[in-house]
Structures are given as C-alpha cells and as structure tokens.
C-alpha cells in the first residue's frame, strides 16, 4: 500500500493536519499520534530521518516548527519519501507564498486538497506541481 498516513505536527506535539490511508478509530489515531510524535521529537538532527515503529516506518522531516511525518510500509524507499515531503512543502509554498504553519491552519482544506491530488490509495500519483495545483487554482477562481 505504501503510505499509511501523513501527519503534520508542530514542535509542541499538536496535530496540524492528519490524513490516514487506512481506517483507524479516533482513539487509535490519538494513541498513534501521541506515540510516534514523542518518538520523533526526541531525536536529534544528526540522527536518521527514519524511525521504525511496530511493523512500519516513519519518515519525518522538520520545517521550522512543523514536523511532517509519513508512515510507510517497510519496503518503501525512505529517501524518496523524504523528498516527497519536500515536494509537498514546495508545492504548498508555491501556492501560499512563504508558507508557514498558520497558512496550513487557516487553509486546512486546501492543504488536504493538495494531498488528495498527490496521494491516492496510499500511492504517490502526481508529482508535477502545476498538475497538483491546477484544480485548486481553478476552484479558487470559480468560487
């Protein structure tokens, strides 16, 4: 399946965006987020950006105060996921202009729309920034 979930969490461990590609109940999500955020936040910058957790891996990357965490299956290419995160941030940056945590908070649905374009069924399906943003910009124009 590839990607199991994508989380954006800030330095204080507060969730800013959560998208799961397999169904988890509210309690399960809460527990999982608490567990992995604690794990990732405790790591130093010199350490790997990958953490093994139960039977999958978390690839994470930090931008300013915001952590992007992606849970992936064990056979996924970690470096590629790391760059996928960066692509996501670059895409958001192109749309929002100097994207910051607050942009994501104010435009939660747009951040989700971008993810919907990029990832389906836990697979990366679109990596061209213009293709990702086209429907969102069209939507902005019409409404």
């Amino acid at each position, binding site marked *: 399946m590839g990607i199991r979930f994508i989380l954006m969490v800030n330095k204080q461990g507060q969730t800013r965006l959560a998208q799961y590609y397999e169904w988890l109940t509210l309690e399960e999500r809460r527990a999982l987020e608490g567990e992995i955020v604690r794990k990732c936040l405790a790591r130093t*910058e010199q350490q790997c950006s990958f953490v093994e957790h139960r039977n999958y891996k978390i690839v994470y990357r930090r931008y300013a105060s915001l952590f992007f965490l992606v849970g992936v299956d064990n056979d996924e290419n970690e*470096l590629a996921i790391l760059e996928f995160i960066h692509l996501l941030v670059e895409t958001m940056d192109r749309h929002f202009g100097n994207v910051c945590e607050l942009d994501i908070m104010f435009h939660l649905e747009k951040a989700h729309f971008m993810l919907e374009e990029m990832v389906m069924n836990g697979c990366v399906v679109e990596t061209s920034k213009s293709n990702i943003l086209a429907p969102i910009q069209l939507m902005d124009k019409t409404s």
Partner: protein
Amino acid sequence: MEQLKTIGRELAMGSQGGFGQSKEFLDLVKSIGEARSKAEEDRIVLSEIETLKRRIVEPDIPRRKMKEYIIRLVYVEMLGHDASFGYIHAVKMTHNDNLLLKRTGYLAVTLFLNEDHDLIILIVNTIQKDLKSDNYLIVCAALNVVCKLINEETIPAVLPQVVELLGHSKEAVRKKAIMALHRFYQKSPSSVSHLVSNFRKRLCDNDPGVMGATLCPLFDLITIDVNSYKDLVVSFVSILKQIAERRLPKSYDYHQMPAPFIQIKLLKILALLGSGDKQASEHMYTVVGDIFRKCDSSSNIGNAVLYECISCVSAIYPNAKLLEAAADVIARFLKSDSHNLKYMGIDALGRLIKLSPEVAEQHQLAVIDCLEDPDDTLKRKTFELLYKMTKSSNVEVIVDRMIDYMININDNHYKTEIASRCVELAEQFAPSNHWFIQTMNRVFEHAGDLVKSKVAHNLMRLIAEGFGEEDDTADSQLRSSAVESYLRIIGEPKLPSLFLQVICWVLGEYGTADGKFSASYVTGKLCDVADAYSNDEIVKSYAVTALMKLFVFEIAAGRKVDILPECQSLIEELSASHSTDLQQRVYELQAIIGLDAHAVECILPSDASCEDIEIDKNLSFLNDYVQQSLEKGAQPYIPESERSGMLDISNFRSQDQHEASTHGLRFEAYELPKPSVPSRTTPVSLASSTELVPVPEPSYHREVQQAATVPSSSDTGSSEVKLRLDGVQKKWGRPTYSSSAASTSNSSSQNTVYEVTPVDGSSNVNSKAREASYDLKKTQVEISPEKQKLAASLFGGTSKSERRASSTGHKVPKGSSHVLKSTAGSTTDVLVEKTTPVQPPPDLLDLGEPTLKDGPSSVDPFKQLEELLDPTQLGSSANPGIVGSTSAPDIMQLYSDKPASGQSGGFMYPSSSNRSDDNLVSGLANATTDSAHNITAAAHPSQFSKGPNLKDSLEKDALVRQMGVTPSSQNPNLFKDLLG
C-alpha cells in the same frame, strides 16, 4: 496609535476576513495555535464542540458559513475529539452544487467516515450523480471519494461509470479513474478481474501523469502474478529510458532530476519482473546502467533513485558491471556523514550481499561504526544486515552483540523480534553445545517473557534429542552442560516464567543423569523455585513433575529416596492447593513414591521423553462399554461439529425431528426475525438520519430504474443497509485488447507524445561542503584495535579485507573528486553563474536576506513588532544585498540561522532560543538546490523578495495582525516560513 490602525483595518475589511473566513474561525485557529498545552487545547476544542452543536442546527445557515462549520468539525476530530454530531451536515454539504463546498463536504466525509459507516448510503447517490457531471473538477472530487469510501458492496454501483471515465478527455479524470479501479482491485480483486487490461491500456496514455499513476496498480498486479506481465518489460524499459533522457514535461522534474518518483516506481516494477529471469533482466541492464551514470549523487532525490537502482540490480539476474556500480554507490553511502545515507547504504548492502558476499568485507569498519552509533535506527538496520550475513564463523560475535543490544531496549515489539532472531541464528549456526546453551540462557534471562513458548519447546526438544548426530556422548555433554548452567542460574532473582519451565523440565529429566549432582541437591533447588515463584502455577507444576521424576529415577536406581524437609512441606502445601492440576500432580507424586522399582520404571522410564507413545485416538477399548450403554437406552454420541449445526434451525429439523420434541425446547423462538417486526425498532440514529437528510424520495425511484436500487432503511428492517445491485455488474463485455500490440504501440506513441526537453545545463549545482569530508574518512586514519578485532571476527581476516577495501578505494575518489571540484567552485561561483531558475522561484528567496539587520540574537521584539505594524516597513526591510554575506564561511549555516522574512513569514523572531531550531533544511542534500535558488533570488531582491503574489501576502499579513495573531504572542513559530 497602533490600536487605531488596527481598528481602521478591521473596519475596512468588514466582518469578513481576508481569507473569506469569519472572525470566529480566525479566533479559533488563533487560540488553537497559541495553546500551550494539550489540556488547554482540549479545553478550547470542548467549548468549540458546544458552540458548534448549537450553531450547526440553526435554520438558514449561509452556505459559506456552513463550510466553515464543517472545517471546524474537521479540527475537532483532528485534535482527537468526537465530532459525530456533525457528520450528517458534512454529508449534506456533498449535495451542494458549488464546487468548493461540494469538495469540502467530500473531504470532510472521507476524514470522518469509514467505508462501512451507515451514512455512506446517503453519499453513494451523490457520487453517482457527480461522476456524470459535465464539470471535470466535480468528477475528480467524486473519484477521490470513490477511492476512500466505496466498499466491496457498493463497487458495482459506481463501477460502470468509473470504467467509462477511463476514456475521459481530461487527463486528471483518467488518472483518478485508474486509481479508483486500483482501489476496487485492492478491496475486491474479483470485482474488477475482467477489467485489469485497462491498466495495461492506460500505461500507454498520452499523459505522463496517467501513465505514472497506472504504475501503482500494475505494481500490485505484478507483485501477485509476475508471469502474466513479462510482455510489458520492454514497455517499462522504454518508458524508463525516455524519462532518463528527459523527454517528459519539465514540470515533472524535481531538483533537476527527471520525474524521479516515476523512475523509482519503474525500477521497483523492473526488480519484480527481472527477478530470476535472465531474459527479462537482459533488457534492463542498459537503462539501469544509464541511470546509475546519470543520477546526481549530490542530492537526496538522486540518491533515492540510486538506492532503487541497487535494489533493482540485486533483485534481477546478476550482471557484473551493474553489481560493481552498485557496490560503488554503497561505498559512497556508507562513507557519507549523513546518517540517512548510511542507513540506505546498510540497507543496500544487505540486499547486495546475497549476490556478492565479499562486498561486505570492504565495508567492515563502516558497518561497525554504524553498529556502535548512538542512533537507534541506524543500529537496528545494522543488526538486520548482520543477521543476513551470519555464518558459523561469525555467529558468536553477532549473536553476542545482538543480545547485548537486546538487553537495553524497551520496545517490546522489537525486543521480541531480535530475541527470536538470536534464537534462530543460534539454532542454525551454533558452533558448540556449550555456547548454544549459554546463548539460550541469556536470551531467556533477558527477554524470557517475550520469547514465544514454541522457542522454549524447541529448546527442550533439542536438549532431549541432541543435535541429531548419532554421537551419544555429545548429546549427554550437551545435557550436562545445560544442567550445570541451570543449577547455577536457578538461584538468580526474577527469572522469566518460560525460562523456569525449561529449567525445571531439564533438571527433572537430566538433573541426576550424569551423577555429578545428588538428587537431594537438585530437588532442593527445585523446591526453592517453587517457593520463590509461588504465584506462578505453571512453574510450580513443572517443578512438582520434575521432583517426581527425580524421585522415580532414584527409586529405579535402587537408591533410597531422601525427601528433604522443605520438599515435604511443599508437597503438603500443594496438596491443598486451589489448583486441581497442582493437587493432582502432588497426589500422583505421593502415590508413585510408594511404589517399587519395577513399577516406577514402567511409569516414568529414564530418558524416554523422545520415545513415541502410541495413542489409540479412537478409544476403541471403550467400544464394549459404549455398546452396553446404548443397549441400555443411552443417547448416541453426537460429534461436536454436528452439534454446532443444531443452531441452524432448518438444518436441525431435517436432521433429527423427533429429538427436538424429546428435549422439550422450543426452537421456534429463535427463528430469524420477520422483516415487519423489527422495522419498529430500527436504530434511532438511522431513523433520525433519514429525517435530517432531505434526500427527496423521487431520486431514489429514479435510481431504481437505472439499475442500482437503494431501498430506504425503513423497509429493509435490518440495521445493515445494503444496496441491491444485482444485474449491474455484467453490463459491459470484456474489452478486446492484445497485449503485444500494446507494448509496441506504447513506445511509438510515447515517442511522439513526450516532448524533448533540453537538459538543464546548470543541473550540477553543488555547494555541499560535507561531501568533501568523506574523502578524508576513506583513509580510515584512526582505527582502534578493538574495532579491528571486531571487524576481523565479523568479516574474517582484516588483512584480506583491507586489500579489498583499497582496491575499491581508488574507484570511490573518482566520484568524490568530481564532487569536490564542484564544491571548489564555491558559493560565489554559484552565485554568479547560476542562471535564472527554471520555474518562478518560490519565495524561499527572501531568505537571502542577510543577517545584517536581524543577525544579532538580541533583537528587541517590541521594536520589531512596531515595524510589523507599519506596512511600509515591509519593503524597506528587504535585502540589504546578499553579496556581502557570502563572506560567511558556511553558506548553509547562514541560511539556517538567518530569519526568514517577507509578509507574514517575515515576522519570525530570530530569538536566541529558537536559533537552534531554525536549521530548516537540516543539511539534507537537496538543500543545495534550495540554497541555489535562494542565492539567485537574493541577486534580484527587489523583484522576488515578496514571492509571486505580493498582494496576497500583504493582505494575509494585514489580516493576521488584525486578528491579533502576532509573533509577540505565545507562538511565534506559527509564522515561520516552512521553507525558510
């Protein structure tokens, strides 16, 4: 004064915020953003829930307002609280005609509901309608939801439309339709088994996006059935070749690599197809070799592709040249300072050693470095590698290390895994019995409760049966050494239960077998165990049985049984135990002790645990008794399997009608409920949901005519609402499609379609200083003798391996010197020579702002705040000129420390406490390209300093300040540029 300004701005903006959002929403976001603790956040969300519960049911809520409520609901759930009270409103919003509202509604339902939720039934209709929409954006939105919320039962309701959309004129629709089909395949392969040829067809789509997406389902299909897709090897190779030659649109480039994510997916597929297939592999050698050569090894994404190449090369039929290239890349990864690359290197090494075990020896010291690294992730990966390369010559060192590591980890999941690996390796490669027993003892001692009981049983069997050789003396040595070590360990405190069971069993069976220890000594120890672990009944029963065996062997050997006083009291105590099992064992023990030597030898023969015991499973010796009872009128025995069948009423009746009457039970009461009765008791939620959603009845009827029948919940009577979709599935025929034709047409069509885009000449930007350092490292200046020793024991002989290391050593620098050269070009070169970026540079560019102004960490936040409040300052604060700053020794350092600027992002405070956190790009390789962008931008500060949409950002800034969300408040991080 400032207040006046704020008020003025507020008036100017009216009640609507600049984002089209109300003040209420902005306040909510602001307070969540500023919450300092989870408790505070929870409090905010709880009061938000109360507000929403009241507001959302108000009549005549404007559509935009409703959208905002839905987003607020999403917040509530995201922050871990239940928002189910509002689900129905999200469902209602999906019915809206406005695209933005519809898509928001769809988004919310995918976040709130799972595919089996009761409300899905209310969405299926809308989805069906939207799939037919003229507006392709609406079709796309519906397809997104199809991927998330359609379950096995509802697939037929949308399948025909999805299939139709595969030929839609818009590539975005075709792409999502393919993914919807992929989803159906994941959910229920049989539902789309007649449609898989569509995946092959879409592989040849004119649009690279559709082609790229199609690789996802194809990967899944090929994983399951490689042989049916061998004909596509040529197509995949040709696509990969075109991508590598940069014939895809430029927008797929990422950090100067052509469509790297598609390349990776293709390499994964090739690895599957070429595995164990020489012919298929031969098609791939050239293109994989090309990619090895073309990859930019200085960027993360280049290394990601290289890693995938190694995975591919080690999966397909081996090719000496490619293996060599792979080994070179691995060498570079392992010598890198980046932990991420080291991790990938260790992983790649684990893949490659299957083909060329000698590669590992070149890197022994690097591997040991990783093993001793404090980074746990790296360590684990290294242990995985060691596990793969274990052989009898190095098993002792590796397993010892593994156990040492195991002792210190807390993660039970991983501890279990590594414990079972230790056991596996020890069983497979144990050099001596003694070592094996010692190793197992350590594993049990430290991870006892996590070890599967099967492992314990294996160990007992192994000790009983020996290693399978016919050498009896070796077996008895094994047993003696086990007994000896167990008698030593048994006194230690807090041993795991499983381990004690093994100890008790072995001591009972072999405790006195070699005559080294007296029966009274061993029994004394066993009594101590039973005392010390008085809560563990299993251990106690093992101990009692062991005692019994020891006594019996004494009697059989003609010696006098000497029962110790503590043993006697234990027996007495246990004979009154609450556990009947324990009681029985003790009574048996007492009874057997009283028997003579001959009798006991029959009951418990010495060393007979491996003898087969014949069991009469049919209990044929009871036949006479059963026959007699039946003659006396007893009921015949009904096997359990048939008894469970009695629950099924009809089955029961036909089978044995008269018995029902003799039982006198009334089975009628359990008959399946009649549809009419429970309709009264339809779950409240369902009933209310139908009320709340004003889905007009007629629309259902229309659907009925169309094929998909949606019975309203009230007349099905069952709480499980299902679609009746019979007759829908087989509407279309199997598409006629010849695969061989596809592969040829594919390459030709793509040749024409993918534009030839020029190779970006400036692709080789590299300002990575750290690349230089591995050159130094290669010389391995200081190698401690212990490390060398460890290396020797792991890899066998340093001298040999060092020779190997040096032989490849001359290859590596070739790559690195190239890197160095470009590094030598230094930052100023980049600054001057870097041409304008290919795409409009993202506004990272402000980052070019030097530290002149904000540099000192002691910036007065209030002063800054004043500046922020004056929009004119924005412009003036920009870019005193980057060129001066290039004198800074480390350009990366400069970027990470300097505060980002420009619109809202510009408010970030470089306070010293934040400073350490500000290293946004964290030295990852792709930072190089970013910094290149930054520099370029800095060269034209006036043009780009505010990013592409200056007006927007100014608005954003003004609005945010209006809301009072300023960096001086509790969470300045909110404003920090993510890409800063």
